[in-house]
């Protein structure tokens, strides 16, 4: 429903072994009409969503992953459980509220979700811990893995029986200043749904990036210019804050750094709180000093934007499409001393995307034309995995197949080829609204009766691990349970009589002697060849080998030919066919 060959509006519906799970419920930044939310009517035309969906999982708090949640649960109507991690649960409503304010108060949109709806929606949330296996119902279980990207971002494994899906959400394989790297164990899911924002990029080492960033900021500030860094309120913003904060401290700089207020303070509070979700360094040092207690970074006031002198401002939102960052951008764009640093990805259609692609004249609302003189820099600080990182994750998880979402189609195509080539697994990249059906080969557990197992044990050697073994038995399928029992027991249970199946075969042998003699010769021949079997000569002239009966008779027409009648049951098929083959070769000529 979203994020198929596209970035934004992440929303994926997964049906796995009869269970329906919705992954993420995001909005699209590029649109302001109906297209910004996923089309939930797609899920089910009639009937309530709650009946159809078993659960909803939110991977992290970015609006393109959770922005449509109140709309979905309150306005469309969903009462089932919504799973997310603790930090996401804490920070998500702040962002939703902020988003609502911009949409309703600034743009005056009607028919938007209300604060109360956000609150109601959050009541349906069930928080999960990392690596905690949550049983949604008897069969469906989910488990969260660390994903890096932003505080509280998680990858989810959804498992029903032996089939499983891993949904990565957004993740980052390289650790940064405040978050660790994504990690997943070798869970071998049937399907891995991975984001692919940077499907065709392999990034340089983060240290160069950091150094470059600091150098650019430092130089601009020394020249007396102002630096605008549009960020999403949470996520990269904190990363850059920590980076600048430590740099300022080291270089002993006095230039003010501002951070646009409001939600950030609240959010920073949560960053201080959820220390366990951050990286090794912060976790280790927070006893002395919590890294998120900034010394140099102050809250921003709108009036500061006109202050003379250098300053660094972090402002939201990150793609310069609205809000404070756009306002500041307008004010500062005319001065070539100033600089704007775009630290992340910009969706097509936003101001950020335009200036990054080199446009110097922008048409703003109200037909104004804004000339951009300030320097525009792009620093890839986005915490998404690059192509190598994606491959690394695929290698870690060892899935049976991969599905790419959250990226641009032609880039995905490249990665898809690579994945198919390297790992030899099928890889899909559906567009929005497209359904991919994956055949799975589920393993079906079968109960085996102890008697049969013991009998089998007694026959053969000790069981060798990981080696297939053939054994005879009867499979009984009864009320969705499978059992393997010995045939006798099966007959008994089912109340059936045993049918005897006998094969008979005639072997013609040229021999002029009497039948009795013939039988004796056959007996002695078999006795000598079949050492390990019990060969008997019965008084009535027939020969038995185990349960196989051999009779000799004269041919009705040709007395010179004797007919050997070999008869065996189905169970002795192997020995029987061997005997006939043996007899067909003829008897050895005895020196009579």
């Amino acid at each position, binding site marked *: 429903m979203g994020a198929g060959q596209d970035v934004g509006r992440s929303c994926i519906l997964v049906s796995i072994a009869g269970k329906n799970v919705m992954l993420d419920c995001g909005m699209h930044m590029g649109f302001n009409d109906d297209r910004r939310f996923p089309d939930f009517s797609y899920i089910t035309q009639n009937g309530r969503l709650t009946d159809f969906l078993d659960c909803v999982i939110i991977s992290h708090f970015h609006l393109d992953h959770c922005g449509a949640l109140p709309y979905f649960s309150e306005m469309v109507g969903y009462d089932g459980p919504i799973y997310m991690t603790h930090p996401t649960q804490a920070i998500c409503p702040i962002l939703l509220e902020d988003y609502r304010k911009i949409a309703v108060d600034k743009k005056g949109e009607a028919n938007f979700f209300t604060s109360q709806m956000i609150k109601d929606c959050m009541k349906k949330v069930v928080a999960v811990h990392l690596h905690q296996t949550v049983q949604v119902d008897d069969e469906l279980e989910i488990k969260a893995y660390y994903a890096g990207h932003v505080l509280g971002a998680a990858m989810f494994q959804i498992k029903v029986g032996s089939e499983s899906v891993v949904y990565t959400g957004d993740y980052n394989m390289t650790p940064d200043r405040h978050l660790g*790297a994504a990690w997943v164990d070798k869970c071998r899911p049937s399907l891995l749904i991975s984001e692919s924002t940077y499907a065709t*990029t392999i990034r340089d080492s983060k*240290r160069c990036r950091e150094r470059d960033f600091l150098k650019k900021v430092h130089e601009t500030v020394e020249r007396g210019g102002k630096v605008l860094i549009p960020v999403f309120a949470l996520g990269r913003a904190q990363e850059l804050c920590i980076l600048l904060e430590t740099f300022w401290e080291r270089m002993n700089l006095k230039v003010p750094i501002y951070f646009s207020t409001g939600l950030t303070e609240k959010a920073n509070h949560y960053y201080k709180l959820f220390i366990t979700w951050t*990286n090794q360094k912060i976790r280790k040092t927070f006893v002395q000093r919590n890294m998120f207690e900034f010394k140099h970074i102050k809250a921003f006031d709108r009036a500061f934007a006109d202050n003379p002198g250098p300053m660094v401002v972090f402002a939201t939102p990150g793609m310069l499409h609205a809000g404070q960052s756009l306002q500041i951008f307008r004010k500062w764009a005319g001065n070539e001393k100033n600089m704007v640093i775009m630290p992340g990805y910009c969706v097509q259609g936003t101001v950020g995307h335009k200036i990054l692609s080199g446009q110097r004249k922008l048409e703003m609302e109200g037909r104004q034309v804004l000339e951009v003189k300030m320097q525009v820099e792009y620093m890839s600080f986005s915490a998404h995995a690059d192509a190598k990182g994606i491959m690394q994750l695929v290698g870690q998880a060892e899935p049976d197949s991969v599905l790419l979402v959250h990226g641009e189609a032609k880039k995905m195509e490249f990665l898809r080829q690579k994945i198919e080539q390297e790992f030899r697994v099928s890889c899909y990249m559906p567009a929005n609204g497209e359904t991919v059906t994956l055949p799975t080969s589920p393993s079906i557990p079968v109960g085996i009766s102890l008697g049969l197992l013991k009998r089998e044990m007694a026959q053969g050697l000790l069981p060798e691990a990981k080696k297939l073994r053939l054994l005879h038995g009867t499979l009984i399928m009864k009320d969705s349970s499978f059992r393997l029992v010995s045939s006798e027991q099966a007959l008994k249970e089912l109340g059936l009589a045993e049918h005897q199946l006998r094969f008979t075969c005639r072997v013609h042998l040229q021999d002029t002697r009497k039948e009795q003699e013939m039988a004796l010769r056959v007996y002695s021949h078999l006795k000598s060849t079949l050492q390990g079997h019990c060969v008997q000569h019965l008084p009535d002239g027939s020969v038995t080998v185990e349960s196989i009966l051999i009779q000799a008779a004269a041919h009705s027409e040709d007395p010179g030919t004797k007919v050997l009648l070999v008869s065996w049951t189905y169970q002795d098929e192997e020995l029987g066919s061997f005997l006939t083959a043996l007899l067909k070769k003829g008897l050895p000529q005895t020196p009579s």
Partner: protein
Amino acid sequence: MAAHLKKRVYEEFTKVVQQQQEEVATKKLRLTKPSKSAALHVDLCKAACPADALQYLLQFARKPVEAESVEGVVRILLEHYYKETDPSVRLKIASLLGLLSKTAGFSPDCIIDDAINILQNEKSHQVLAQLLDTLLAIGTKLAENQAIQTRLVDVACKHLTDTSHGVRNKCLQLLGNLGSLEKSVTKDTEGLTARDVQKIIGDYFSDQDPRVRTAAIKAMLQLHERGLKLHQTVYNQACKLLSDDYEQVRSAAVQLIWVVSQLYPESIVPIPSSNEEIRLVDDAFGKICHMVSDGSWVVRVQAAKLLGSMEQVSSHFLEQTLDKKLMSDLRRKRTAHERAKELYSSGEFSSGRKWGDDAPKEEVDTGAVNLIESGACGAFVHGLEDEMYEVRIAAVEALCMLAQSSPAFAEKCLDFLVDMFNDEIEEVRLQSIHTMRKISNNITLREDQLDTVLAVLEDSSRDIREALHELLCCTNVSTKEGIHLALVELLKNLTKYPTDRDSIWKCLKFLGSRHPTLVLPLVPELLSTHPFFDTAEPDMDDPAYIAVLVLIFNAAKTCPTMPALFSDHTFRHYAYLRDSLSHLVPALRLPGRKLVSSALSPNIAPHEDPSQQFLQQSLERVYSLQHLDPQGAQELLEFTIRDLQRLGELQSELAGVADFSATYLRCQLLLIKALQEKLWNVAAPLYLKQSDLASAAAKQIMEETYKMEFMYSGVENKQVVIIHHMRLQAKALQLIVTARTTRGVDPLFGMCEKFLQEVDFFQRCFIADLPQLQDSFVDKLLDLMPRLMTSKPAEVVKILQTMLRQSAFLHLPLPEQIHKASATIIEPAGESDNPLRFTSGLVVALDVDATLEHVQDPQNTVKVQVLYPDGQAQMIHPKPADFRNPGPGRHRLITQVYLSHTAWTEPCQVEVRLLLAYSSTARIPKSPWIEGGEGPPQVDTSIEGAIPFSKPVKVYIMPKPARR
């Protein structure tokens, strides 16, 4: 005579006592032996339930068992083992058997049959595993016995098919530890159970239990450690295990691959996907590199560490580890490093602001891009960016080792190391700075790299800054701007952290002497001289100015044109600095200047070392002196001591020798002076007052000898003999003085006894060196020993007195390398006027920072002493972790001293100084006599002494009375 008799009796008595004690002890042991096993037996029989038996066994296990009684105990244990039905008790017995068989002096071959026997009947898996463990203990004890080894290996092979992983584990362990080495070929002919241990172990690489797989790999590694050459086939098996689900298996597999790659570096292996072939070591390198991005950090650390020791890897592979092919939207992109290099080589200073300078260039062929190369691509890039700092440190270490062996690689990895200077964890930063220092002779820093390096000078951590100074000492800088930049940054550092002064000066000294030609064009600017105008004379006490001068003077040493640029005051300052900071400022040949140094300098070149000669000559003069008259001898000694002291001050490299000899001569002088006292012949009662000088001399000689023995590093045994000899003379002097001053015989008797024991001790310790001491005091003393033993104290004293006078002056052979231990307290500086205020009864922490030179084993010997104004002294033992070792022979103590006192009315100063603790028995070779007995009694008095070896620093403190 009576005294003699008494002594004899006493001597005999002591001997008797010792023997008796021994006898009693052995008897006791014998008595306990049977009773111990018997008690165990009784206990075990008494035990009503398994829990009780277990308790008894646990109690029993707490006490050690003597070697002789082990067998008895083992028998009893085995007996109970057969009877016991409870597996937990059997388990305990089995483990006890293992413990007992490890007892030193007990040969476990007698229980091996029983152990194997019980193994065959055992059902419980746990007990089985424990029994195998016991067998392992027995097997390792009897490593020489081939038959037993083979037998145990057979047992292990038989149980390898057990269903329990624990048993299989132990079997593999047994195989690894005992598997026969290279015997398989010879045994095959006999048709015996010659087993190819490697193959058996190799089969368990694919066991279903990860623990068993790990054990199998470990067993293989164990085989390797024991010297068995592993087959190359192991390599392929191990490679398969690299993708195991369990981290411990992968970790062990990485190790195994490394081992094999070291064994067969040159053999050729095929690349699976193509028909090419590469060297095994390269292949292994690639595989281990791949493991640097493993999911588990334990494996990553392991892999990163091992990478460092793979030196045979071809350079082409090595360089790949630093190469991560960047791309952006499918177009090839250059790394920031490459861009920086290009900018630099094009002569443009890196602006970093050019729009689109990182714009991707050529299109990448989609087919050719291999995203998850099996090769070594970017392994270090990943390793250095890892989340866990353990991995990063391991990667830095590996880089260091590889760079040391390959200069080309060193050049390449520079960028990455420089980047690591900005790591968020201090340890990593420190480690990378150290690494850089180690490889610094292979590299030259580019300006932009230097820029990043120098930025770290503002780091708040002192360790980092000092490490960086060390690094700068031995770096090659390519341009004069680089030097200028470095100087500017160092001066900035100096103003920010004045305590770094010494370290910065030293750094600039090396920087100057390494780059004279680069400093030359900077001189006018640095000295702010002007072609036409005289500029103001800079302040001579400004550390920054001194720093600049240090740089210039050191550069001028090898750059004769430089002094022409100096102005007058510079020359004056040179003379001053040459004298005050002689270790930093070299001697310069200054044209047209009649400076002391210029007069000296021509002499330095032709002669090898005049000061050394001077030292030798003056010492020889002294040693030939025993025939001179005392008056002349005294004067000569005094002059020589003065000369030596001055020499030590001037020539820092000879300071140790000069001081050492001077101290020795001073002792001799004191001894002569004391013996010269005219009052020796005066009757005792009158003598009382005048004895001060002699006894003080004796005391001082003692002190000086301790200093000689313990404060110098590099003192050899032959010097120790002389020192001890001198001390013995001092003790004799003491004895004589006391004999003269005290009345009555009783105290004297004890002292005589003590002295004679000491002589005895001396003889025992230095029996080998006695021939050296011809004609000396001790030599004569030992000759007269039988007589002394039987004489009265008064007689002894008389003999000693004459002997002291007659004894020759011993020649002190000079050691090769001798350095005086010294310490300087950098912090507290002792200049503060603000008292340190704290509430009385509570403690205040005082930061102490000191550098120690030539101190051996500072962790144990260096102590901090705090002297309070009331005479109270406190000795503080710093933690071993407080000592750092920045260079050879140098240590640094950074610690905190806790002060506390009752309330004072006004602030007062406490003295802080460093002590060198010594114990006189430490140096003497240990004889069984010392170990056995309690040692000579006089040792106890001197066993813990401490020599102050730093200037005391005064700290102003003020304990305030507690507010109520």
